[in-house]
C-alpha cells in the first residue's frame, strides 16, 4: 500500500487495527498475582511445617503419612517455615478481603460467581473440554465451567482461612475448631483444603497454557487481544 493511500484513509484506519477487550480490572490483576505468590509461600511453608509431624494419627505410636521432600518446601526448618506461614497469611487474607470486597462493590462478581443460571451450561462445556464436543456459544467473559472453578476456588480460599484459624487458635476460636471436629481434625481439613487449592491451581495452569499468550498476558495488562468469545 502506498503512503498516499494510507493518508487518504480516515485516521483510525491508518494503522493496523486489532480486536481487544479490557477484561481484568487493576484490582483484580494485583490481587491475582499477590494471591499467586502468597499461595505459593503458604503451601511451601505449610508443607515444611507438616514435615515436623507428617501424620494425622497419634504421636505415640507415630505413623507417617508422607515424607514430603525438604527441597519442595519453604523455610528450611519448622521455626523458619512458621515465620513464612505467619507472615504471608496476612498478605493472603488481606488480598482475599480486598478481592472479595472489590468484586462485591464493583459488581464484577457477576462475571465470576457461579449461580443456578449457569448450571445448565456446565455439561456442554465439559463435553467440549473433555470429550471433544462442539464449543458452546459463549455469552459471557467466563463460561459456566470457569465460573464454577473460580467460585470453588474462592470458597476454598475462605475454607483455608477458617481451617487455618482453627489450627492456629483452637482455644480462642473454639467454635470453629468444634465445627471441624476439634483441633486434631481441623489440622487434617486444613491439609485437605490445601491439596484442593493446589488441584485447582494445576487445572488453572493447564488451561492457561492451552489458551496461549494473549490470554496469559491479559492478567498482567488487563487487555485481551482477540478474545475468543
Amino acid at each position: 500500500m502506498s503512503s498516499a493511500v494510507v493518508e487518504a484513509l480516515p485516521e483510525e484506519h491508518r494503522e493496523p487495527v486489532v480486536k481487544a477487550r479490557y477484561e481484568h480490572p487493576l484490582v483484580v490483576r494485583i490481587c491475582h498475582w499477590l494471591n499467586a505468590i502468597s499461595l505459593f509461600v503458604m503451601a511451601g511453608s505449610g508443607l515444611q511445617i507438616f514435615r515436623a509431624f507428617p501424620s494425622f494419627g497419634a504421636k505415640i505410636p507415630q505413623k507417617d503419612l508422607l515424607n514430603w521432600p525438604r527441597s519442595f518446601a519453604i523455610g528450611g526448618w519448622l521455626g523458619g517455615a512458621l515465620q513464612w506461614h505467619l507472615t504471608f497469611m496476612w498478605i493472603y487474607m488481606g488480598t482475599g478481603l480486598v478481592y472479595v470486597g472489590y468484586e462485591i462493590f464493583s459488581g464484577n462478581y457477576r462475571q465470576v460467581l457461579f449461580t443456578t443460571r449457569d448450571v445448565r451450561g456446565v455439561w456442554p462445556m465439559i463435553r467440549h473440554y473433555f470429550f471433544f464436543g462442539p464449543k458452546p456459544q459463549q455469552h459471557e467473559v467466563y463460561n459456566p465451567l470457569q465460573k464454577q472453578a473460580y467460585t470453588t476456588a474462592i470458597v476454598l480460599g475462605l475454607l483455608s482461612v477458617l481451617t487455618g484459624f482453627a489450627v492456629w487458635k483452637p482455644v480462642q476460636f473454639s467454635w470453629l475448631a468444634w465445627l471441624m471436629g476439634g483441633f486434631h481434625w481441623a489440622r487434617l481439613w486444613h491439609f485437605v483444603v490445601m491439596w484442593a487449592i493446589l488441584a485447582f491451581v494445576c487445572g488453572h495452569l493447564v488451561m492457561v497454557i492451552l489458551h496461549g499468550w494473549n490470554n496469559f498476558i491479559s492478567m498482567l495488562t488487563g487487555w485481551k487481544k482477540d478474545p475468543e468469545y
Partner: protein
Amino acid sequence: MESNGRKPEPNQGSNAKPESTVPAGQAASDAEQTTMPRNAATAAESRPPVSNEVAEKRVEPLTVEPGISRRKLAQVSRRELLKVAPVLALGAFVIPGAQEWLLKKGLGFSDWASARMFRSGHLAQTFSDSELTPFNNFPINDYDVDDPGVIFENWTLTVTGLAQKPGDYTLARIQQLPLQRQNTRHICVEGWDVIGRFGGTRLSNFLKMIGADTTANYVTVACADDYYESLDMATALHPQTLLCWEMYDQPLTREHGAPLRLQIPTKIGYKQAKYLTDLKVTNVLDGKVGYWEDQGYSYFYGL
C-alpha cells in the same frame, strides 16, 4: 458476536422479536423471564426498540473494542502492566538481609494480633476422663535431656523481680495453695496433640502468694536444664494456667518436668516449661525471650 452490544443498529428495532409480542399472561409462565413480560408487553405497545435493547443486553453483554490500533493497544498494555509492578515489592522477601527483617516483622505482627485475640475469661475446652490419652502415650519432649537430675531435697523455686516477697519457695509451701485438676488438650508446635490430666495450683494463686506486681508485663521462668521461657501477664493470670506438680493424679515424673512445671492450655507446648527453678516478675525481657523464641519461634503463640 463481536459487534458493540451497547449500540444496537437502528433497524433492529423494527424487527420485533417473538418474545416481545407474547401477551403478559403467557410470558409469565416462562419461569426464566420473570422480569421480562411486563417490559415486553408495554414495549410492544409503545416503544419496541427499548424491549429490543433489553433483550439484546441479556443475550450478548460482551463488548469488544471494535478497532484499537496495534500501537495504541501496545501503549495501554504497557501502561497497565506498569500499574501491576508494585506486586514486585514482594521480591524483597528473597533479598537475604531484608528477608530476615521482614519475617521478623511478620511474626511480630502475628504475635501482636495473637495478644489482641486472647480473651482472659475464655476457657480452653476440658475433657472427660474417658477422652484422656493414656499416660504412657503422652509424649516426652525436651530440647536436651529427659532428666536434668534435679535433687528434690534441695529444690526450691527462687522468686525475684517485682514481688513483695522474693526468695526461695519449697514445694511443700507451694502445694499449700488450692489444688486444681483439669483434663485439657496439649498441642505441640510440631502439630501433634494429646489430652492429658494435670494438677497443680493456678499461677495467679502463687503470684498473689509472692505479692507479685500483676500490672507488670511478664512472668519469666528458668529451668534446671537451662531452658527458659516468658509469659505475658494476661496468660499468667488465666484461671487455667497452672504451676503443675501432678499428671494423671500422680506426682509429676522426672521426664515430664518434676518437681514443678508450667501447664497452660491456652499456649503451645514449648511455652509450658518443665523442671522450673526460677520465677521472675518483670517489665522487660533483656533480649532473652525463650529458648525457642530466641531461635525464631513465635513469642506469644497463644492457642
